[in-house]
């Protein structure tokens, strides 16, 4: 059955791989908290609640199976952040990785930024496949030789060894955020990046760790007057002076760093007036934006709030150009979702390589794709049951009315503990990575 993707409706999504433990008992540390492809799509990084980063590398396409894109296998695993304690405030700082962002590759090594609530780290991931042999003062096993026993000198030579991938922290950007960091974004100048917390956005230089510039500050003089917080921020993909940040009130502000040092005055503000018919106790919660992403072209941006995905044209501030309902059937369940805290879930969203399809997650391990060109949408499920290699994903349907058709799932049987918050799309190909609670699913387009 056809589904949206890649500008044509001929994409057939197939299961490719699943990573992670198979137990139903999920260890909290294994909960995936972020997923990100690098700029070529060769590497796929995940961060988890335990502060670890796992990087998968795509195998080169094999000559035997040219139809199948390479599989992703573990490339490197390292502990990025540890739990810390702020003694001054008597607060524990979680080691959970909130975001990972790759730097564009400049040399043989790969670099990524990973952040928890308070500290951003620049990691260098490099390969080592040779090692020196033939030291004069050391034995092969590392023991030092007795200097008196050295009678000849030799030059050590490099010999091939098994590939070793090393991750080392090159920079630590700490102590710049009072509130919890929710976003990082690398600038198109490849020299600077921004980090955003609830009330402030800071600009950093990748080489400088002891200083950062505050470029947005929405903290009111009296905290009792606080009405909104920053929820996400991103640099424009091409214009190094432009960035956007979204707020808990459902607004997006576009700022130009050329205008002033402190970008409290926005250049543009994107806001859609609230529909008064939909007013409820929870209106403020469901209008809070959980993610904002520029399209690859830089012409559009996408925002995700609790029930919908909106595409905005940067040239039009008054309303989005497209709105897609992710799970409108939840609107009547908001009270229960408030009670079990699901209404606070922060879903992310992503564009495909040519900006024709957008994707976001939902509950019951469902994820949704919206084809902008063909005006189609589809719902898939990431589950072990549909996990036969190269099996085509079957679209799922949720029955909202009284009568439930065969194969439809009723809203009341949705599992709200199984949520897909993080998804990523390969920058060039139709390969997607979808994170359930503690598993990472990789789906590919079945090439004909």
């Amino acid at each position, binding site marked *: 059955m056809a589904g949206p993707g890649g500008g044509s409706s001929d994409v057939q999504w197939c299961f490719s791989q699943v990573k992670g433990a198979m137990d139903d008992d999920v260890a909290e540390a294994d909960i995936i908290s972020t997923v990100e492809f690098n700029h070529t799509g060769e590497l796929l990084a995940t961060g988890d609640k335990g502060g670890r980063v796992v990087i998968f590398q795509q195998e080169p396409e094999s000559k035997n199976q040219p139809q199948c894109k390479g599989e992703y296998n573990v490339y490197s695993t390292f502990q990025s952040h540890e739990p810390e304690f702020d003694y001054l405030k008597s607060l*524990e700082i*979680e080691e959970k990785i909130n975001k990972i962002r790759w730097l564009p590759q400049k040399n043989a090594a790969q670099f990524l930024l990973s952040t928890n609530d308070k500290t951003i780290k620049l990691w260098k991931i490099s390969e080592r496949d040779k090692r020196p042999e033939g030291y004069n003062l050391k034995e092969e096993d590392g023991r030092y030789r007795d200097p008196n026993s050295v009678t000849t000198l030799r030059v050590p030579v490099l010999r091939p060894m098994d590939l070793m991938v090393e991750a080392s922290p090159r920079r630590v950007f700490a102590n710049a955020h009072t509130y*919890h960091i929710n976003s990082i974004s690398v600038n198109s100048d490849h020299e600077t990046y921004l980090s955003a917390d609830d009330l402030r956005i800071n600009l950093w230089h990748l080489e400088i760790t002891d200083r950062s510039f505050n470029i947005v500050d929405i903290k009111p*003089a*009296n905290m*009792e007057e*606080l009405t909104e917080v920053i929820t996400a921020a991103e640099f424009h993909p091409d214009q190094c002076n432009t960035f956007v940040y979204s707020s808990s009130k459902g607004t997006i502000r576009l700022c130009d760093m050329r205008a002033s040092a402190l970008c409290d005055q926005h250049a543009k503000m994107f806001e859609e007036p609230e529909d008064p018919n939909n007013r409820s106790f929870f209106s403020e*919660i469901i209008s*809070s934006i959980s993610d904002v992403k520029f399209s690859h072209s830089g012409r559009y941006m996408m925002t995700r709030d609790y029930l919908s995905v909106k595409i905005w044209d940067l040239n039009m501030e008054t309303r989005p150009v497209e709105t897609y309902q992710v799970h409108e059937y939840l609107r009547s369940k908001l009270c229960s979702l408030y009670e079990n805290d699901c209404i606070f879930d922060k879903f992310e969203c992503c564009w495909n390589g040519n900006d024709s399809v957008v994707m976001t997650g939902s509950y019951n391990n469902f994820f949704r794709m919206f084809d902008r060109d063909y005006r189609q949408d589809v719902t898939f499920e990431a589950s072990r049951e549909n996990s036969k290699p190269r099996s085509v994903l079957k679209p799922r349907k949720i029955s909202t009315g009284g009568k439930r058709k065969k194969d439809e799932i009723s809203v009341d049987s949705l599992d709200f503990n199984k949520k897909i918050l993080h998804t990523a799309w390969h920058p060039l190909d139709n390969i997607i990575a979808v994170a359930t609670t503690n598993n990472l699913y990789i789906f590919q387009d079945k090439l004909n």
Partner: protein
Amino acid sequence: MECAVDAQSLISMSLMKIHSSRTQRGGIKLHKNLLVSYVLRNARQLYIKEKYAEIYRMQQYEEVMAVCSGIQELDPLEPLEQQGAEDAEPEQPGRAALCGEESRAAGGREPEPPEPAYYRSCCMEDQFSQNCNKTTVLDLDTHVVTTVENGFLHQDCCCAAAAAAAPQCAPGAAARKRKVDSAGCSPDLEEPADYTAGRKRLKREECSGADCSPDASNISNLISIFGSGFSGLLSRQAELEQVCSKQALASLGAWTRAIVAF
């Protein structure tokens, strides 16, 4: 799956969330607590509106009964004081619901500033004594916390009316409040804030004791105390309360005038 979407349960749910967020790992999440406070504000608005409507209905009924009994008992040859006294009785609840401006206009008797006097007159009424409790009340305008003996139902009415009445009947106080808001950390704000924080802590300890399911009186107390926070939200709330209470007050005023005239 559906839960009761009534204001009271939402209020208690929200307060529980705020309370439990204090012990969450990683510190208090500002964003989540801000969103919870919006729900709390929305639920509180509805709760107060409902309570106000209920009190209005009860007062209408009481006034009708009082007028009827007054008509029956009134002897045209009775001295004016008695008439005045009897008028005062039904007038009291009317004044209680009115803002201080009207009471000031009525006789200029201002032994105390409008809000505390108005609380006390309200509380001394025995009409609602069946619902009486010892309770703590925060004056949203002057940020003064008082403990009163009677009537928890009144207190919400008082709080709401005070918040609504503040802009109209106590322009000085309103201006002061607004000034405080714009200036930021003013000294008189810090003190009650500490005090209310202390009371908040006290309330929390009481609540987290044996039984952590707040009953109705605790809810109204916590609302009063919580009212001191997030005044940025409150100013908008006060506008809304103004709108709804103006209508209620206008009709109440008509009743009182009718009684006085008679």
